[in-house]
């Protein structure tokens, strides 16, 4: 008998900040949100995993570079390799890039300033487990808050990603100097997605926008479908 609620883990690294908001938002969207400590070498039984925002291990050396080697990240890589759903938000996106689950790297913002504001995001794909509740071409308003959010990859890699339709979200206005205004990308199979904006901070109109709930609820739907299919 499958659990009526999908089980979605949120990894807490030393220096993670948005893990609690992510847990709260997922629970509000009817998932069973499960904290996962960074020292855990095996994930509990999960239908999806979220790597949250923050400054894991102080973001020393490079953002996400040290978190990449934490035991929980190794377990997440294994989970992703088996087709598990993985969402990386902000610092979590940086960790996924450093871990090689997503292409490219996040560099210091072109302005050298920390950006903290709501930004418009254009949805490039609505056929992913993370965007099924969105419509292609739709504009979402979701906050960003980062100093190192300029996604970069060499031109040949960008061309490959565009051809594979791995760009999921683009900034609707200049934000941080990202190549092609890329705000979020997925891996080729589409089970791993990373974005700099924070959907977990935009799940209720009281917070200024509920557009982030479209992304997270898509993930909850997909995780639920997986939970039911494994019965």
């Amino acid at each position, binding site marked *: 008998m499958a659990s009526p609620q999908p089980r979605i883990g949120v990894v807490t690294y030393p220096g993670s900040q948005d893990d609690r908001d992510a847990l709260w938002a997922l629970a509000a969207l009817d998932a069973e949100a499960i904290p996962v400590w960074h020292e855990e070498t095996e994930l509990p039984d999960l239908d999806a995993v979220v790597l949250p925002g923050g400054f894991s291990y102080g973001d020393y050396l490079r953002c996400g570079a040290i978190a990449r080697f934490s035991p929980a990240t190794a377990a997440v890589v294994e989970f992703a390799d088996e087709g598990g759903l993985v969402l990386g938000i902000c610092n979590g996106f940086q960790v996924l890039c450093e871990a090689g689950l997503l292409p*490219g790297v996040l*560099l*210091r913002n*072109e*302005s050298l300033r920390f950006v903290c504001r709501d930004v418009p995001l254009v949805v490039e794909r609505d056929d992913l487990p993370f965007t099924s509740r969105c419509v292609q071409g739709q504009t979402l308003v979701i906050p960003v808050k980062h100093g190192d959010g300029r996604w*970069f990859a060499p031109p040949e890699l960008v061309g490959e990603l565009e051809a594979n339709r791995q760009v999921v979200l683009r900034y609707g206005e200049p934000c941080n*100097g990202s190549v092609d205004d890329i705000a979020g990308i997925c891996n080729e199979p589409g089970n791993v997605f990373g974005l700099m904006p924070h959907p977990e901070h935009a799940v209720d109109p009281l917070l200024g926008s509920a557009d982030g709930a479209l992304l997270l609820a898509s993930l909850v739907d997909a995780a639920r479908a997986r939970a039911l299919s494994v019965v």
Partner: protein
Amino acid sequence: MLVRPKQGILDPQGAAVETALEHLGFSVSGARVGKVVDLEVDASTPDDARAQVEKMCEQLLANPLMESYEVEIHG
């Protein structure tokens, strides 16, 4: 070891440093900001030390997408 932003990658820190130097009256161009990591390693020969550090660079200390590195051995 020295880690540098790769050629062709926009380095806003380098650009900011260059502008500040120009404000001080220096005539400079091409400023790039990287980092230095000093390490002590147990190694029998300088070549062994270099091989160890290069492995560290590839795994952790530099990201080959955005950075190049150079290893210097002393002592």
